[in-house]
Structures are given as structure tokens and as C-alpha cells.
């Protein structure tokens, strides 16, 4: 390794840093450290003149390492790496010290903040000495796409990709396409028919020359990596078919919450306490009748069943409020004189046309009753004969502070959208993570909501989180666009800071293999060592920590680099 020649640059960030950190003192403190060739400070390092300063110095002083003390590397690491690259040194020979978000902005004592900045810069200097150049890499993309799940989002994505002339393999677990939407009567907020919407889509998918549909089929294992996946599926127990594809879309959908666990609602106990999904069946059948075959005179709709309650699911299912209002219209149309009770915990009308829909619904002669999810759920009891109704709901009404009894003949439980069960296999196969609520985790909740941390794997629809039809469709088209973009490019960049095995040290114990969440490590029987497929590797580094022999190197996060950084932060005390 050539002797490190480090350029250190401390940013003022206007006054953002300089107000709390004595940038001059920091610069002076590190100037004389071993391997530091030059140390400067400047008003805005990220500005063009700031970057030019680095570029010029690299050339002038023959620098081979750069440290910038400025904002969070999550903001400008890429900026400065690019500057290094422009100046002709490998972008990974750069390190950043976060003296703004984690120093000047959070501390109030200038001396302490300056000392901290010095520690952080020294650590970066110590670390960068051991940085190694890393090379960018690309892989080719197979133009076919695998879509798992034939609901509205899967179907939409399939059509979008197939219409662009690319092959789609659509795999559906059940025996028909259409998903949950196929089970709905009307949709909110326009009360248009779900059937009229989904049927033509299914038909188009069925007849599309670029889409191969596999019903009653599950994905067991997927091998390969972005651009080059493979799976074997067996249709109806027949011979396995081998499929090859470059991208994967998971659209495995949702599962209605089972309200049996909520004892207050006595679901299953009382036959006229039904879930929203069961109510859709009644609507599709065309008649709203109690089990006694009578038209209910009092219909209660209970919101947030299994939602927004730490005992069941803390999250909000997003669609149930509007679906409940939709039922108001349907019940009112069918039973003009019925009393309708909306028993809700909060009315959430966030979407386009939703608030208007809510306002419209309030004129449908209904009674809104609010309950407190956290304190007490409404309790559904059997009514006495004298009550002149089927059941009585006892509840503490929040807005009035009254404990009340509500006479009801039918109760619709707006059940939570739960994550699909038994997806562990799919999750494992395609290498995505599940959040605490068992929904698939996106790569970035705001900036990358349909991608996952596994390259080439996208998640759309309700498997990513509860959402309505427009959102599912939007995600489907977004994922399709991403995939078509990658196909058009022909190749995609892959992670650089991966792990790699030092075969001279690997003893073949295979501890690392089970540790990898991406199945990127395999055992080479011939050489009796583990090898990392650096295309699959995401660079989390957990194998590096698991390797007892110290044979796995986490590139850019090596033991030496991190230990030097630790020594660095502690060296000035």
C-alpha cells in the first residue's frame, strides 16, 4: 500500500457548523497528524468551489485519501465521492465526519462541540488510512418478470409490463385471478361496481400473449440475483417448470383479521355479528338479511376491529372507514327506514374524494357513535325480549361521555387488513424483510416505496401495507416502470461494499452460510471454503461478524477500519 496522503476539509456550512464548532481549531488540531498532507476549512464544502478545492488539492498535492468534516454522510457522501472520482482517485478512498447533524446542531457548548468535532475528524483520518479502492459493477437483466399474486396490483403490473412487449410469469396461489377486489360489490368513494372493474382486467390478463398465468401455484425457492433469477414451479403437481426472469414483483396481498380473538364482539357467538368481508358476500348476493331471514331494523357498523389497538394491531388499515361509509349507503338504499349506527374510533378520510364522501354520508340519517380504542371496546350482548331488538351494544360514548346502550339486529365488523399468512416461504425465497406487523419492508418508506433491499425485487399492493385500490394500482404501475426501466437499460449497478472471503484464512466451518439473509454465501466443496456471491450480497456485514476465523472481509467496514476509527475517537482524551 502506498503511503496515505490525506487531505482534510472542514466545512463551515455557513454558520451551521461554524457557529458551534471552532472550525479553525479543528483544522489546526489535525494538521500535524501523521499522514495528513493538508488540512483546510471552507464556507461550503459541498458547493462547486468547495468541491473544486478538493479536486485541485488532490492533483496539486498528489492526495490519495480525502476526509471531509461536514454534514451527515447520508446527505453528501455521494457528492464528495463523485468529486474524488473526478479528480482521479477512487471514490471509496474518502471518509466523512458528521459534525453538523451529530455535533453542531445538537450541542450547546462550543468547547465541547469543538472537541467532539476533533475526535470525529481524527477518527475519520485514522479510518481513511485503511480504505481500499473498490470498483463499480453491473449485471445484465433478463427481460422477463415474475409476479407473485394475481390481485388487482399483480394484474395491473402484469398488464403494464406485458403491454410493453416483455414476458410476464404471473403466479397465483388460489384457483382464480382477481384477488380481494373480486369479492367486493361496490367501491368507495364513487360507489362504482368492483366487478365491472376487475372482470375486464382478468380477461385481458388471461388473453395476453405475453403473460403466462400459473394458478394454484406457489413459489418455493428462487435462486439467482437481480437480472438473473430462476425458479422451478410445478403446476397441478405436474413436472416442474423452470422459469428465468430478471425481476420479481411480490403482490401477495392481505388477509382479513379474524375478530374471534376480540371477546367483546362475540363474533361466531352471535350469527348476526359479521365481518365486512362477510357483509360483502351478502351484498353480492343481493339481500341484507339476518340469520332469521328478516331485514334488520338496526344495523351497527363497528370500525377499527383489530386496528389501532395495541392488543391486536397498532396500525391503521386505512380503507375500513371509507368501506364502512360505503356500507351506510348500501344499507340505506336497501333498508330506507333502518337505524344505522357508525360506531367508530376515529374517522379517517384522507384520500381524494374521501372527505366529500364522508360529508355526503353524514346526510344519510345515521348515528355516529365514538368509542375509545384504548380504554374500552364496545361490547355486544344478547338483547332481552323486552328490548325489541336482536342484540345490545354497550359502549362508553367518547364525545358525550355517556355510557350507552345501542339496540342492534346486525353488526358489521370492519376488520383490519392483516398481512398475508404463510408468506415466510415467499419472503425467504425472494429475500425481503418483514416489519413487525409482518408486512413487507420497502427499501425507503418515502423515496423508494416499491423497491426492496434486494435488488430486482419489488413489493406492491397490500403486502407492503394496508392500502386502497388506487394506491395498489399506483404501486403496481410504479414497480412496472422501474422494471421496464431496468430492462431498457439492459444492465443494473450492484452493491460495491460487499463481503468477500479470504480463502487463505477460511477454514470451511460454514458458520457464515446460514447467517446471510440473502443466501449470498455458499460452500465450495472443492476448495473447502465459503464463497460470497457478490452480486447477491447487500453488504450488511453480518457474516463478517459471524466468521470465527476472521476470514470474511466486509469491504469498506473492515475490522481494521472500524478499530482505527474507535482508536481515533478515543485518541484525543
Amino acid at each position, binding site marked *: 500500500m502506498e503511503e496515505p496522503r490525506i487531505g482534510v476539509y472542514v466545512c463551515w456550512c455557513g454558520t451551521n457548523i461554524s457557529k458551534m464548532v471552532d472550525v479553525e481549531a479543528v483544522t489546526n488540531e489535525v494538521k500535524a497528524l501523521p499522514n495528513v498532507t493538508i488540512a483546510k476549512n471552507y464556507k461550503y464544502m459541498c458547493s462547486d468551489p468547495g468541491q473544486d478545492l478538493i479536486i485541485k488539492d488532490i492533483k496539486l498535492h498528489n492526495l490519495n485519501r480525502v476526509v471531509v468534516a461536514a454534514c451527515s454522510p447520508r446527505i453528501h457522501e455521494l457528492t464528495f465521492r463523485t468529486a474524488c472520482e473526478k479528480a482521479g482517485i477512487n471514490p471509496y478512498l474518502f471518509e466523512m465526519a458528521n459534525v453538523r447533524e451529530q455535533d453542531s446542531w445538537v450541542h450547546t457548548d462550543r468547547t465541547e462541540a469543538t472537541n467532539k468535532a476533533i475526535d470525529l475528524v481524527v477518527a475519520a483520518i485514522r479510518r481513511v488510512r485503511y480504505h481500499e479502492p473498490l470498483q463499480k459493477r453491473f449485471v445484465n437483466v433478463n427481460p422477463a418478470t415474475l409476479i407473485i399474486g394475481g390481485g388487482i396490483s399483480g394484474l395491473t403490473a402484469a398488464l403494464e409490463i406485458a403491454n410493453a412487449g416483455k414476458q410476464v410469469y404471473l403466479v397465483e396461489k388460489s384457483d382464480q385471478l382477481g384477488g380481494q377486489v373480486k369479492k367486493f360489490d361496490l367501491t368507495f368513494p364513487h360507489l362504482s361496481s368492483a366487478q365491472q372493474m376487475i372482470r375486464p382486467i382478468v380477461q385481458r390478463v388471461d388473453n395476453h400473449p405475453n403473460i403466462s398465468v400459473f394458478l394454484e401455484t406457489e413459489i418455493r425457492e428462487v435462486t439467482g440475483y437481480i437480472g438473473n433469477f430462476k425458479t422451478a414451479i410445478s403446476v397441478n403437481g405436474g413436472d416442474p417448470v423452470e422459469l428465468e426472469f430478471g425481476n420479481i414483483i411480490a403482490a401477495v396481498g392481505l388477509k382479513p383479521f379474524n375478530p374471534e380473538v376480540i371477546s367483546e364482539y362475540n363474533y361466531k357467538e352471535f350469527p348476526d355479528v359479521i365481518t365486512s368481508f362477510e357483509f360483502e358476500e351478502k351484498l353480492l348476493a343481493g339481500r341484507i338479511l339476518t340469520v332469521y331471514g328478516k331485514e334488520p331494523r*338496526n344495523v351497527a357498523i363497528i370500525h377499527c376491529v383489530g386496528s389501532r389497538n395495541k392488543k391486536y394491531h397498532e396500525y391503521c388499515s386505512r380503507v375500513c372507514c371509507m368501506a364502512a361509509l360505503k356500507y351506510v349507503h348500501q344499507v340505506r338504499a336497501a333498508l330506507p327506514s333502518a*337505524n344505522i*349506527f357508525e360506531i367508530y374510533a376515529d*374517522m379517517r378520510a384522507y384520500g381524494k374524494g374521501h372527505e366529500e364522501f364522508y360529508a355526503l354520508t*353524514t*346526510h344519510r*340519517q*345515521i*348515528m*355516529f*357513535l365514538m368509542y375509545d380504542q384504548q380504554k374500552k371496546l364496545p361490547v355486544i350482548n344478547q338483547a332481552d325480549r323486552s328490548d325489541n331488538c336482536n342484540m345490545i351494544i*354497550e359502549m362508553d*360514548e367518547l*364525545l*358525550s361521555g*355517556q*355510557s*350507552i*346502550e*345501542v*339496540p342492534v339486529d346486525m353488526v358489521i365488523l370492519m376488520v383490519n387488513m392483516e398481512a398475508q399468512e404463510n408468506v415466510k416461504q415467499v419472503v425467504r425465497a425472494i429475500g425481503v424483510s418483514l416489519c413487525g406487523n409482518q408486512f413487507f419492508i420497502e427499501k425507503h418508506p418515502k423515496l423508494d416505496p416499491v423497491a426492496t433491499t434486494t435488488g430486482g425485487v419489488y413489493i406492491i399492493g397490500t403486502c407492503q401495507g394496508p392500502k386502497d385500490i388506487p394506491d395498489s394500482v399506483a404501486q403496481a404501475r410504479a414497480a412496472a416502470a422501474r422494471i421496464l426501466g431496468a430492462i431498457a437499460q439492459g444492465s443494473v449497478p450492484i452493491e460495491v461494499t460487499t463481503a468477500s472471503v479470504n480463502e487463505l484464512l477460511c477454514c470451511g466451518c460454514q458458520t457464515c452460510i446460514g447467517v446471510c439473509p440473502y443466501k449470498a454465501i455458499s460452500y465450495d466443496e472443492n476448495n473447502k471454503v465459503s464463497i460470497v456471491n457478490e452480486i447477491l450480497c447487500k453488504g450488511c456485514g453480518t457474516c463478517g461478524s459471524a466468521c470465527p476465523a476472521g476470514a470474511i472481509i466486509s469491504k469498506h467496514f473492515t475490522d481494521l477500519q472500524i478499530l482505527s476509527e474507535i482508536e481515533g475517537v478515543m485518541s484525543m482524551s
Partner: protein
Amino acid sequence: MSVRVHPELRNQLMQFGIGDWNACYHCGTCTAMCPLSEEGFLFPRKKIRLMQMGLKNEIESSVEPWLCYYCGDCTSTCPRDANPGELMMSLRRYLTSIYDWTGLSKKFYTSEVWEIGSILLIAVLVVIAFLIGLPAMGYSFTTELTSQGGVKINSFAPIHIIEAFDWAMAIVVGGLLISNILRMYYKIIWKHGHTKVTFWVHVREFWRLVFNFSVQPKFGKCDDKRYWFSHWFLMSGYTIMFIVVVVFLPWFQTEKILPPWHLQRALGYYATFGLLFGLLVAITGRMRRKDVKFYFSHVSDWLFLVMLTLTVITGILIHIFRIYGMPYATYIFYIIHMAVLVPMILIEVPFSKWSHLAYRPFAVYFQHLKTHAVPRKTKINSIN
């Protein structure tokens, strides 16, 4: 203890003028805005909730609707156009009908046929009484004028008969009002919440009744003081007129033409101006529909205004015609005056809008009694 919701109550309340049920989403802006809403007696939001939920007993035992003087601030600041002011007004109508044990109030409020029909019926009876009754009893009127040139009005409307009738009407109306107020007391203090108030508290707080009746300090707390003034002006005129007519009729319905500065005429002019001014403000307000409090008008609102205006105008005309010695005109307008006044008193005071003259001050009185109410001992059936 849980209470049963009555979904059907909402339809009933609808007939009392309540508009959009579910518009209110309980932000509480109205309660925050209201200068009259106070700890322990919060409104309008809470009352709207009771209405929405059909909690009959809770509504009927509410004193708060009477504490509202309808300045309209709640309605103009409501983000949902839920119109809390008018909802409170509607509640007052409903409560009036609930306090009334005869059931007539409800009929009058919910049926225009009943209300207008009854008024017409009484008016016709009054006309009959004058045209047929009095002559049948042997009274005959004269067109002769007095020495001062005034109309001999007592020959047309014999003073002792009219006075007797006034007293009879006052007793009937007063009796009805008192019985309704007792029912109001029963619902607010006794029935709901099972409380009682000591006799001493009744006595100690009594001044509030008088004070609120005569000054209407609560109305004065509303932001726009003009309405308090016009209302107080009207009310004082009305009260003077009422007392003069019922108690001092022989002094008032005189054939003498007193000098204009005479107390009798001065009181009459004050009352007339008070009434006219108040009516002018209310009528123009309801016609212009600029202020929130006048934006919504129930049939009962207009009926009351029209009848009172007619009474005042006919009263003025009687006064003018009498002084200028025009017997026929005087007698005709006397009949019209009575044909408007009598049904107005008989129907509006005990059964309709005008009852608020009693319910409002009593409500303030009851409100203060309520704050001193103690739980009533109820029999506890122990299991042993």
C-alpha cells in the same frame, strides 16, 4: 349506568327545526367561542352530541339551551356549518313542548295547521264575543263622544268585563306557565340525577330569578350588545304594558284624554316605543338575514313577530282613533287588537315562543340551584 339511545328522537327533533344532524364533528369551537358557556354548563357541543345520539332523558333535563341567547357566534365560526346556534334554538322549542303537559305545545310547534288554526279559532271567538256576546249580554256601544271629543271606549268594551277577562286569561296562562315550570324543575333538578336542593338555597338564590328576568345579564354577555338593548327595550315595554293592562286596566283604558306627559300616557308611549323598536330590529333582521341569529326562521318565530306587531300597531291606532274621536274605527281596531292579542297570549305565552320569558330566568335560577344540588337518598335493596 348506561342509557339507551333513541334513534327515533332525531326525527322528532327535526320537526322542531333541527337541520343537518351529523354535520357537527365535535371540534368544540362553538363551546370555546361561546361567552355564556361555563364550567359545568357547557354548550352547544355537548348538547348537539346528546341530540345526535338521541339521549332523550339527558336532553330533557338540560338547562343549557335556556342559557343560550343566540348571538350566533357559534354558527358563524363553525367549520362544518353545523349551525349550533339554531340547534340550540330548536332544542328550546323541543323543551318548551316537553315542559307542556297538555301536549298542545308540541302540536303547535310541529303542525302549522294546528298553530294557525288555533289562533284563527280564538280570533274568531273574540270577534264573536264582541259582535254577538257583548250585545247579547245587553251592552250596546255609543258613537257619542266625550266632552274632550274622545271616543267612549268603555261603552264598547265595558271595562269590568274586559278586566275580568284579562284576569281570567292571566290566571289560565299563569297557571299553565307555573305548572310547566314545575315540570321543568322536576326534570332538571329532581328526576335526572336524583338530586334535591335545600329550601334555604331556593330562597338564597331567588334573587337571580328576579335579576335575570329584569336585566337579562346573560344576554348582555353576548358580544353584540345592541341585541341585548333592543331585546331589553322590547321586554321592558312588554312587561309594562302587560302589568298596566292586567293590573291597572281601569286606569289605562280610560275615556279621559290625559295630557301627554301624564304617567299613564308616558308609560304607554315608552312601552310602545320599546316594543316597536325591538320588533323593528327583529323583523328587519329576519328579513335581511344578515346576522346569524336571524338567519333561520321557524314558523313560530314569524308568527310571534307578526302577531306582536299587529297588536302594537292596532293598539296605537286605537289610541289615535280614540283621541281624535273616531268611534267606529276605534271599535273595529279594538276588535282586531283583541283578536290578535288574545290568541297570542293564550298560545304563544304558555305553549310557544313567548314562554321563554318564564323559562329563561327560571333556567338561570335552576342552574344555580343545580350547582348546590345534593344526591337524594334512594332506597338501596341490599341482597342480604
